[in-house]
Structures are given as C-alpha cells and as structure tokens.
C-alpha cells in the first residue's frame, strides 16, 4: 500500500465495491500465518495430521483468514480508519496451490458513529467460497 490517505465517511456510498484482492495460497503462507497467529494446531503445518482429518493437505487457519479479511478492508479504508468488529464464517478450506479472490461491497452505513459495514467474500478457484463475513469500520468525516 503506497497511498496512505484515508477514505472519509462522506466519500462512501452503500453499494460501493472494494477493489478485489487476489491471494495465491501457498504452504508458506499457511504455515507462516499459523505461526504468526501462534496457532500450532498440527493440521495447519503437518500434512499427515491434515490428511488424518480428511483433507489432502494442510489448510489455512481461521485467524489468518480473519487477518486477510481485515487487511482487505483496511487497505481500502486507509490508516486513519478504526476497525469496530469483524465476523467470519468459513466454508471450503484454502489449500496450497489455490488462489483466493476477496471481494467486498458496502452494505450499510451508520451516520451516528461514522461506521460503514462491508460484506466480504473470499472465493478460492478450486472449491469455491472459503469465507463470508462482515467488517465494520469507522471512517473520519470530511475535515
């Protein structure tokens, strides 16, 4: 992110679409994400453990998915925004070799606290919907 300006509440409208974010899923990202979130559950770094659980390979942990969902929205909103809440529902797992595309749309706005609600969906190219969720973020007003 080179542009460090923050979007203002008044510059946003319901129905605005966020620029899609394409994330190649690699074993490195899955393991790195698991460790960076201190999630050492074996299925996120040990292929044999993942296979015992019924999947062909290690898969992304929910904390990494949540992190990517938050990043997707703050990349768009800018550094002066304030995250208020996030809610994620996982679908198909993200495995190495997949490509996930994250899309989002402004679904609601609350003038009282200057917050906007972004509905986010992450879809991988192999198994479909990986995550669906909502991120609420407060934006500054026009100066």
């Amino acid at each position, binding site marked *: 992110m080179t542009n460090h300006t923050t979007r203002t509440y008044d510059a946003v409208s319901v129905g605005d679409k966020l620029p899609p974010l394409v994330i190649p899923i690699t074993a490195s990202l899955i393991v790195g*994400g698991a460790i960076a979130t201190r999630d050492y559950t074996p299925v996120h770094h040990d292929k044999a453990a*993942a296979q015992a659980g019924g999947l062909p390979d290690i898969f992304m942990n929910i904390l990494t998915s949540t992190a990517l969902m938050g990043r997707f929205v703050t990349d768009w909103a800018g550094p002066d925004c304030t995250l208020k809440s996030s809610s994620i529902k996982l679908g198909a797992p993200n495995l190495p*070799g997949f490509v996930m595309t994250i899309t989002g749309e402004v679904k609601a706005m609350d003038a009282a606290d200057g917050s906007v609600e972004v509905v986010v969906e992450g879809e991988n190219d192999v198994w479909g919907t990986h995550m669906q969720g909502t991120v609420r973020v407060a934006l500054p007003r026009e100066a």
Partner: protein
Amino acid sequence: MTPEAKKDFEDRIQTYVGREISARKRGLDDVNKVMVRQWCEVMGDNNPVYTDEEFAARSSKGGLIAPPTMLQVWGMEGYSMANEPKEDLQRELHKIFDAQGYSGVLGTNCDLEFKRDLRPGDQVYAREVIESISEQKATSRGLGYFIETRTVFTDQSGEEVGNMKFRVLKFVPDQATQDAAAGAGESEKVAAPTRIHSPRGHDNAWWWEAVDQGKVLIQRCKSCQTLRHPPRPMCGECQSMEWDSIESALQGTVFSFTQIHYPKVPGYQYPLVCAVISLNEGTRLVANVVGCDPEDVTIGMPVKGVVEQVDEATMLPQFYPAG
C-alpha cells in the same frame, strides 16, 4: 448410537454449557512490536499505523497500534498445542465428543468486537466460557455439533478491550474422504476444476466432438430436411433415422435468460448468464451470454456466437452481443 445412548450423550455435553474454560488470565506475551511486525509481514498488511512509528505518531492514532484482528493472538496457548495441548475444560469436552466418534474439529465462525485499539505494552487478559452447544446438525463435513465459546478480553486496568464469539464444529470425519486424503501422494496437488462435461454417447458424442473442433452443428433429417436440437436418433416429423448435419452460423437472439447467483459451482466463472438462444437456422440452443454486463442482457437481444476454450479442458459456444 441407540436413541437412549444419544440422549445420554447429549445430556452430558449440555452440562458443560455456561461453564468457564479459563478464568481471567494474562496472555503469555503483552502487546509488542515484534509479534505485530512479523504478523504484518506474513499477512501482507502494510498499514503504517502498525509498524511505522513516525507515521503512526502523526496519524489520528497518535502512535503505533496493534492490528485489531490480532486480538485472539495475544491469548493463544502456543507451541504446546502441537504436542501436548493443555488439559482444560474445552479439552475435556472435546474428548467426550472424540469418544463418540466426533473426532473432527473445525473452526467455522469467529465474531470479534473491538472496544479500543491496543498499543505496544498493553497487557491482554482473557476469560473464556462455553456459551452453547447446538443440536446435532448434518453438515457438509459430516454429522456434528457446533460448540460456541465466548471470550472477553480486558487490559491491565480491567477494562474490556474486545470480545470474541468462536464456533467450532465437532464432527464425524467421513472414512471415504479420509482414505482418499491419505492416498493423495506427496507431489499431487488438488487441481483446479473445470466445467462439468456432458457424458458422450451414441446420440450426442458427434455433436460435442464438433464443438471440440470449434463448430456447432445442427442435426438434419436426411429424408424431410427438418432441423432438430438437441440431437435424437429419429425424426419426429417423418420417423426417418437417417440424418446429417449443417454448421450453425451462430447468429440469433436471446429467447430467455437467467443470471446464476447461487450456488456458485467451482470451475465456473461468475457473473454467469445462461440463455436460450434462438438461432437464425430455426433451432434453439442453451449457452452462455458473455462480453457484456449481465444487467444489459434482454430478451430479443441479437447475439453472435463463437466456440471458445472456457477452461483447460472445455470448449463451449459463447454468445456476445451483436452490435
């Protein structure tokens, strides 16, 4: 499980609802720049208020903050999860599920609420409670139960900084998928799916083979010259079983259409518009309309088709708006 055994099991797991998994406990690491920077590096998050001290100081944040979605990270157990997870109430409950065959575990939902930004030096305390256990559900992973826990995060002064609802599915792993998974070799990758192809038999293989070659054919009765699609072995007009075909010029109009939203099937590209096309030759053909905003497709719209490769393994007629 007999109905009685199931009831005993469900009564037993329900006794865990409302109980505390862990009392308010301080995280192993306080909020710190090192873990934040490493997290940002992996997540590709370049927001300067997390890592650029000068920028953060000048910003509305007035100094560095931790990424809010790291909230749960500060209370994680760490490396012991891989080997000997600590024995707590949650483990105890999971073991009851494991004993009944519900050995699979999957995080399915996480709702986070952030009350204030955390800064380096902040201490994070967590208190976790089992909030509810669902009825048995049939899920795509197998039969199982959802366990919902609620964690309240507080700081060094006891103020709430945020909270979390976390839901896991405890399920019976499907033996067939387990076997298939274990059979996947070291080098094998899960391949990107293609569109679902038509089976090919006596009456239709020739048609699909022509599509593979870039042509759309229309079956024609040799006896009465009537065109027909989809292909059939006999002419409904004169009962002749002799036929040949003509190549369609793929010009026509949209007779009806629908944009497919749900379910999204892997291997298909969305937005996706399916249409019944009236070909100028007089027969109809179901195909996709592409090359325009789905909102702009109308009944009666003139279209021109071309047979295209739509994925690694599939050739299909696709129709574009005709000027």
